[in-house]
């Protein structure tokens, strides 16, 4: 496979690049013989990467099975044929990071169309890139948060999270006054009138580290940091190994143990490929600063929903932004700063 149009990243473990020439001083062909290959050898004696081999074998099998089933089926509608054709293309698409703009558009069209075929409803999906001179950051006022959890609800609705397992990106920790940030003793699933006497509230979610350990450990490069600082996941490239979940020191990542379920009427149809589009079983997900909103100039859903103004979102590169004023004028801190992860999520007090 040509290195330049490869659609995935290789690990290259214990495999240094092979030199172009070998002992027999031939630049091409095999060293054994000069004879051109013919017949059986032409097909079977081809040097091929393991991945390419797997692709071809699977493709062969699928083509075979598909061809048999669709050609023999008399009742197979055009729609089901279109569906299987799209599934086929989706199956072999590359890593989003390596896609050309055209390929991105194609996969988005397929996803939108397949949702339409499945439900009869239209969705709107974007692949908008990061804008120049934008680096997103977040500030959280721990003196203002009252623990109402409006942010959690807004996040679940905006980001199409699984309703049955109650997966949530945001956790609000109820902490006792005078004990510092003691997460072990804090309660993130309280149910009583808030704010409770003698307690304060602290929200955590993905901090979109500038030096993200989760990105470092991904064996297939299915997660990365975008130019505007948002750490994203390609849900179609993730293999679900959960290394990133283990690497995150902030409990920012979530895993889909089952196929996520969102009632059709509750699905947020304004989606982004790297954001709130519907996920599947066995992939990671997390807060994306509501990429489908923030790249359009909007605030993330949690910021908009907060009734106390504890949450501030903005462009760190704009010296006139609210977040910059907070960083320059309030006493701010970040969690586990000593790890060098450089979270872009600051806490402050009045």
């Amino acid at each position, binding site marked *: 496979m040509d290195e330049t149009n490869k659609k995935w990243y290789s690990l290259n473990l214990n495999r240094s690049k092979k030199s172009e020439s070998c002992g027999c001083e031939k630049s091409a062909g095999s060293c054994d013989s000069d004879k051109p290959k013919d017949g059986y050898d032409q097909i079977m004696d081809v040097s091929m990467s393991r991945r390419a081999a797997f692709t071809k074998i699977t493709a062969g099998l699928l083509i075979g099975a598909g061809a048999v089933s669709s050609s023999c089926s008399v009742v197979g509608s055009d729609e089901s044929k279109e569906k299987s054709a799209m599934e086929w293309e989706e199956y072999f698409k590359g890593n989003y990071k390596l896609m050309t703009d055209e390929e991105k558009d194609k996969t988005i069209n397929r996803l939108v169309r397949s949702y339409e075929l499945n439900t009869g409803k239209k969705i709107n999906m974007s692949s908008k890139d990061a804008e120049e*001179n934008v680096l*997103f950051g977040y500030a959280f006022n721990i003196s203002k948060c009252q623990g109402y959890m409006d942010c959690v609800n807004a996040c679940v609705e905006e980001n199409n999270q699984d309703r049955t397992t109650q997966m949530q990106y945001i956790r609000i920790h109820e902490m006792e006054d005078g004990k510092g940030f003691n997460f072990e003793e804090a309660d993130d699933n309280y*149910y009583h009138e808030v704010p409770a006497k003698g307690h304060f509230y602290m929200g955590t979610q993905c901090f979109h580290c*500038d030096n993200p350990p989760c990105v470092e450990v991904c064996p297939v490069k299915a997660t990365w940091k975008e130019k505007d600082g948002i750490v994203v996941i390609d849900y179609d490239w993730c293999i679900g190994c959960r290394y990133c979940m283990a690497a995150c020191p902030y409990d920012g990542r979530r895993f889909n143990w089952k196929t996520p379920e969102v009632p059709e009427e509750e699905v947020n149809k304004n989606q982004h490929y790297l954001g709130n589009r519907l996920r599947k079983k066995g992939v990671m997900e997390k807060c994306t600063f509501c990429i489908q909103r923030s790249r359009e*100039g909007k*605030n993330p859903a949690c910021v908009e929903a907060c009734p106390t103004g504890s949450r501030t979102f*903005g462009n760190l*590169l704009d010296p006139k932004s*609210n*977040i910059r004023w907070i960083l320059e004028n309030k006493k701010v801190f970040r969690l586990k700063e000593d790890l060098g992860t450089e979270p872009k999520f600051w806490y402050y007090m009045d």
Partner: protein
Amino acid sequence: MTTKVKVISLIIVVCLFAVSCKHSDEHKYHTVTDKIEANSIVYKGETSSDIYNETIKKVEVKDGEFEFLIPERKSQIASYNCTECHSQPLEKLKEHKVGEKAAHWNIKLNHAGPETMNCTTCHGKNDFDNLQSLTNSEIDFNYSYKLCSQCHQDQFKDWKGGAHGKQLGGWAPPRVSNTCVNCHNPHSPQFEKRWPVRFNTTVEKERE
């Protein structure tokens, strides 16, 4: 001999410099703060929050280096102008007959103590259409933050900067922020206690 040592040490220093300061583009900065400082530029991008705030009527706040917009207030008050009912001065109103319902009977003042504040601390004794500062100068209802900031100086400072309160619509300029009374009821400014909007029953069961 000494020149040789000098030359060698110079070479070492040059090498060290060349090696240690050669960062890839991704690791050009030691901290995110360095990165922010180096790349700061007043945002003039295409993305704007304007469309999300189109329906809100706004007025401008100008205070020193700060310039931003807040929602207009007067058109939101149900029966403004106040003088449409209050045609008489306050002294006269006080003489209302027994059995007559007092105006604004439903408003209970729960803001500081009665020795600090009563209705006329903020509302004009003679001019009902405007608010009134501590020194009896007029304050327009649209700029009621000027009234609040007489006492709440710290909050005022944070609000102007963006650490207190809330930006509406989006992060992108132009900045539209809620003014004090958009979040706080001026007659009872404290946020009320209430139940959280959700409880995760599944999580509770799993943790048992």
